């Protein structure tokens, strides 16, 4: 019990405070609504709908699981980068490219049997994501261009490529609006409820694999060493440049798999408005879990539940789903201000800080490896 409090105490306090701030934002935004009678209980109505929409029924729980899948996969991508001292702020672009790769291959193999079609489409998605992670990796290794700037630029380039592909080569011929063909047999089979697709199992599997990779393999040890101290890593005979390229590619692969899981598991085709906030939610997921792969299951479930419940919250309380972004950012704010939080609230025995992220700023702007 005490150990649980040590690990989870600070995140839980931050989550509660984030929800409190969210309630005040709801109350404040009521003042901006025209023709709206001010109601003190609106936050309670909203949060009740949020909970009901995320865990209130079997269907709601399945919805939460489905919303969690891309968050866990993209969260693993960001967390893996943190372990190597890299800030993969471009999970969003890798996510979009992964989705695009999966839909492009999925349309081609749509008529093959699922045993062939699914692996082919998945591989294409993962490769496309990995390629989009490889670019900032090689740029950093060769020229020292910091990944925070290059991956953000690549996010915007990915949006343009996606818009071009969906309205150009991948568009259904003769369709009035830009939309791709259905992925057909490449779609993930349903394993639970009405829409709980195979991606749930894949996400769980990837958590185990990433955890094993980081903690039980030589490569994982080298990644963690480069993240903790690049100079020591080089002195010990490791090659930081190669590791940076490899790690960024793996980050891209994981984020690409997140995009793949949405295309093959949920939408089955792609429109030009395909775009979610998964890549940025993933940063919150990884930070809240302190980059621990198993912790990401829990933080992914929390934000997945919020995303799943947001729809009902909008219907029943008229609160825009963007409130979730506000709550998420507030939770992170309290986490990053952890030392102050511990002092003010007199929290004892909790481990503070965001873990594994102290090394990010150090490499900023200069050649991190030489």
């Amino acid at each position: 019990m005490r150990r649980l409090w040590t690990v989870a105490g600070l995140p839980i306090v931050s989550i509660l405070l984030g929800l409190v701030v969210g309630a005040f934002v709801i109350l404040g935004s009521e003042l901006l609504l025209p023709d709206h009678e001010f109601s003190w209980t609106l936050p309670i109505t909203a949060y009740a709908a949020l909970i009901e929409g995320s865990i209130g029924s079997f269907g709601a729980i399945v919805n939460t699981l489905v919303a969690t899948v891309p968050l866990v996969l993209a969260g693993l991508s960001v967390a893996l980068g943190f372990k190597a001292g890299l800030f993969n702020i471009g999970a969003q672009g890798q996510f979009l490219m992964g989705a695009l790769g999966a839909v492009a291959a999925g349309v081609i193999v749509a008529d093959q049997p699922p045993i062939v079609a699914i692996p082919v489409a998945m591989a294409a998605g993962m490769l496309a994501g990995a390629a989009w992670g490889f670019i900032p990796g090689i740029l950093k290794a060769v020229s020292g261009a910091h990944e925070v700037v290059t991956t953000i630029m690549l996010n915007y380039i990915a949006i343009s490529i996606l818009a071009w592909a969906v309205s150009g080569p991948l568009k259904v011929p003769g369709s009035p609006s830009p939309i791709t063909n259905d992925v057909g047999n490449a779609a993930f089979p349903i394993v639970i409820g009405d829409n709980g697709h195979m991606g749930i199992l894949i996400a769980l599997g990837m958590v185990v694999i990433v955890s094993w990779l980081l903690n039980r393999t030589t490569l994982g040890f080298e990644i963690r060493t480069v993240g903790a101290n690049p100079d020591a890593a080089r002195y010990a005979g490791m090659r930081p440049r190669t590791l940076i390229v490899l790690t960024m590619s793996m980050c891209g692969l994981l984020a690409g798999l997140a995009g793949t899981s949405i295309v093959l598991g949920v939408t089955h085709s792609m429109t030009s408005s395909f775009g979610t906030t998964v890549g940025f939610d993933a940063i919150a997921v990884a930070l809240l879990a302190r980059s621990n792969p198993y912790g990401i299951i829990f933080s992914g479930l929390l934000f997945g539940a919020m995303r799943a419940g947001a729809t009902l919250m909008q219907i029943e309380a008229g609160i825009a789903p963007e409130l979730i972004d506000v709550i998420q950012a507030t939770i992170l704010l309290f986490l990053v201000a952890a030392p102050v939080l511990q002092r003010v609230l007199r929290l004892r025995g909790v481990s503070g800080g965001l873990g594994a992220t102290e090394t990010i700023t150090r490499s900023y702007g200069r050649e991190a490896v030489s």
Partner: protein
Amino acid sequence: MDPLISALYGIPIVGLLFQFGGYLIAILPPVAPILLQSATPLVLAALCGVMCERSGVVNIGIEGMMLTAAFVGWLVGVIVAPMIPADASPIFGATPALLIALVLAVGAAVGVSLLHAWLCISVRADQIISGTIINIAAAGLTAYLYTIVSANSPEGAGNFIAFKPPPAVAELPVVGWLLQMFLNQGPIAMSVLFIVVGFQIWLFRSRWGLRTRAVGEHPRAAETVGIDVIKLRYRNVLYGGILAGLAGAYLSMEATNSFQADMTGGRGFIGLAAMIVGRWTPLGAFGAALLFSSSQALGQVIKFAPPSGDLGSVVGSIPGQFYDALPYIVTIIVLAGFVGRSIPPAADGQPYEREAAT
């Protein structure tokens, strides 16, 4: 000469390059004002970066500060304009509502930068994480409030309009288009040049500038000669907030008269790239930002006034999305080419802790 030129034209690529050069020269005068306009938010963002990082604080949250300022400027305009109805004045089309909105927009960005300063300097949190959280929070909060306020499509306060120089100025030979570039602008874009030059002189020729650079390179040494490192860093990050606020206000109050979710579109980050390519100097950042903005302006112009001839058919066959992505592609390529020779302030990104008094 003639046979040589016609022979050169015979090589397809060279012929196209010649045509492209001719096209650029032809469009430059009318495009010149757009160049500075698309550069304005990038330059101001880059200057915000220089201001913060010269004193040793990394600021990734410029994007969020700009977004906050853009939203607050628009929102205040929406609220105040009906209260103080006024005709647009002949000077930049300014109204009391617009001026109040501008002040509050910049104030909001300074408020956000105060949060960043507190997290980075006092809490000593990771500076990149702090900036990222500011970006996520600003994007979420502005999008949330915007959906609420825009539900009944309110009237905004309008926007600052460009000063129209007399037509005779534009017809001057050679300098005509340059004057046009700097005079045919709204107040924020026009002031950019003064801010850049003033900041350059201030940073390299004043006591404050010397202290800023000292704190950014070696805070411990600066403290031993009596400079208050903490106070100076706070001050610089807040000044940076003013610049980011102007950049955001430009987007929603001068370039357009409306707000959109994520309307900054990565400009804060392109500004950071301009800062790095410009080697952490105001003039260098201005040059780099002009380079990035010219790719953006070129993309816009090619869509509206495509060239003719062979070049036109080549340009026409490239999908329009390529031109949307052009500024980002150029930024990556230039950044990757320049960054190795660009050295940041030595204490950039390192929190400062006073040594305990003995």
